[in-house]
């Protein structure tokens, strides 16, 4: 960085090849950290954390439900920001990141809903409650599905990228409004018997494994996002020399000399 306004890093960041090669160097470490954190967090939470006084053992689902929900919501913003960067700076790479984030986020949102439903049965006696947070999560899933569907509706990949980036941005503006409205709607209709607000303070022995799991999910998200983006890069850059070199090295076909 010689001069004060050195923007080369920014343009290098936009280069798919630079991204592919740099992440390739860091991937083994990320794999190791992610898997280790996931295993440690799960075993700690499921077997070693003390059980909840009121909910008993069913509360252990929190170690999956909360981290997954965090990433499901954060993922939408990551996707929208990547789309916005693509629209503003016309950066190819950020569209690839956005495209990779959509199915990942949708899968995590589904998981958040599923673990929530399974947790609900022993706790409130029913799989589904129209609670504010659950309803917002369901709407988030629909928002993800909309972005995914729009992405693949166009023949031209470029148009699909731009259109879904635009939709993701519109969704981002709407998410706070949706959350506030659903919150208000719920307080209006709240059934007196069901109270879903969790305990305000958590015992440290319960909280530490949760923290590990949240960290593990952030690593997991980064890992899968990078892996998916690398696949996108290979497919889009298949005509370029460096991808062809990679393919030649990896090729184990019959007549390869």
């Amino acid at each position: 960085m010689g001069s004060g306004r050195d923007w080369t890093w920014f343009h290098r960041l936009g280069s798919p090849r630079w991204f592919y090669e740099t992440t390739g160097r860091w991937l083994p470490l990320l794999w190791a950290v992610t898997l280790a954190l996931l295993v440690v967090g799960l075993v700690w939470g499921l077997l070693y954390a003390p059980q909840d006084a009121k909910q008993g053992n069913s509360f252990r689902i929190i170690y999956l439900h909360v981290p997954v929900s965090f990433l499901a919501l954060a993922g939408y913003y990551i996707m929208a920001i990547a789309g916005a960067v693509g629209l503003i700076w016309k950066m190819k790479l950020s569209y690839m990141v956005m495209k990779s984030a959509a199915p990942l986020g949708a899968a995590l949102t589904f998981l958040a809903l599923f673990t929530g439903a399974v947790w609900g049965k022993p706790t409130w006696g029913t799989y589904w409650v129209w609670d504010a947070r659950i309803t917002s999560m369901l709407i988030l899933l629909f928002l993800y599905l909309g972005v995914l569907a729009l992405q693949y509706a166009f023949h031209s990949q470029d148009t699909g990228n731009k259109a879904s980036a635009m939709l993701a941005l519109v969704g981002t503006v709407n998410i706070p409004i949706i959350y506030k409205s659903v919150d208000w709607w719920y307080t209006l209709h709240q059934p007196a018997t069901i109270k879903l607000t969790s305990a305000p303070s958590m015992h440290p022995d319960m909280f530490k494994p949760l923290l590990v799991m949240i960290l593990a999910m952030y690593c997991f998200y980064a890992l899968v996002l990078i892996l998916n983006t690398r696949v996108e890069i290979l497919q889009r850059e298949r005509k370029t020399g460096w991808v062809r070199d990679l393919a030649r090295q990896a090729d184990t076909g019959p007549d390869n000399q």
Partner: protein
Amino acid sequence: MSNAHNAGFTGYLQRDLLLAYRRRGEAASPLIFFLLVATLVPLGVSPEAGRLEPLAPGIIWVMALLATLLSTEGLFASDYQDGSLEQMIIAPQLLAMPVLGKVTAHWLVTGLPLTLVSPIIGIMLSLPSDGFIPMMASLALGTGCLSLVGAVGAALTVSLRKGGLLLSLLVVPLYMPVIIFGSATVQAGIDGLNWFAPLAILGAMLATAVALCPLAIAGALRLVSSN
């Protein structure tokens, strides 16, 4: 400058109203749909007034939403096919102004008639008499939001041949705040509560949508029609 923008707004407003007047049959179909589905509810649920009454605010709002959704699909479609959308985009004015004109025309031929017809459906679904004024007020403001937000989806899907189903998938999640506060306004009126509060929020949403949606629509039209 501002005169040119106003001309873009009023020009497209008048043009679309004239087009809608020439195709009156087509413009009436959301209304007929609205009335038709209202007849299904007593058949499907129960003809008893006591059972229809608590459902009425929600059902009226759901049907108004669906009727608006049906009509938004064609908002830019014919302009896209005959090439006049291209012209609108390359015109030197701010694209948001003609877009706003088109959406206003759309509201005048769908949202406003829906609002005016809604008392008939209120009677059919035995809505309590205190709910009528809040219903009409909330529909008038709410359908404006629906037209504006729906137009964003219509712009994004304009170049697709089968955009209708996709459009509903894109737009319905964004409609949820409107339906929450719309039916809450009606319910508050029935319960004798202060229904101005939810109505004011609907108004705030409409103001936000008027400010932001034309920009999003203009951006979407540029993106999609450039290829």
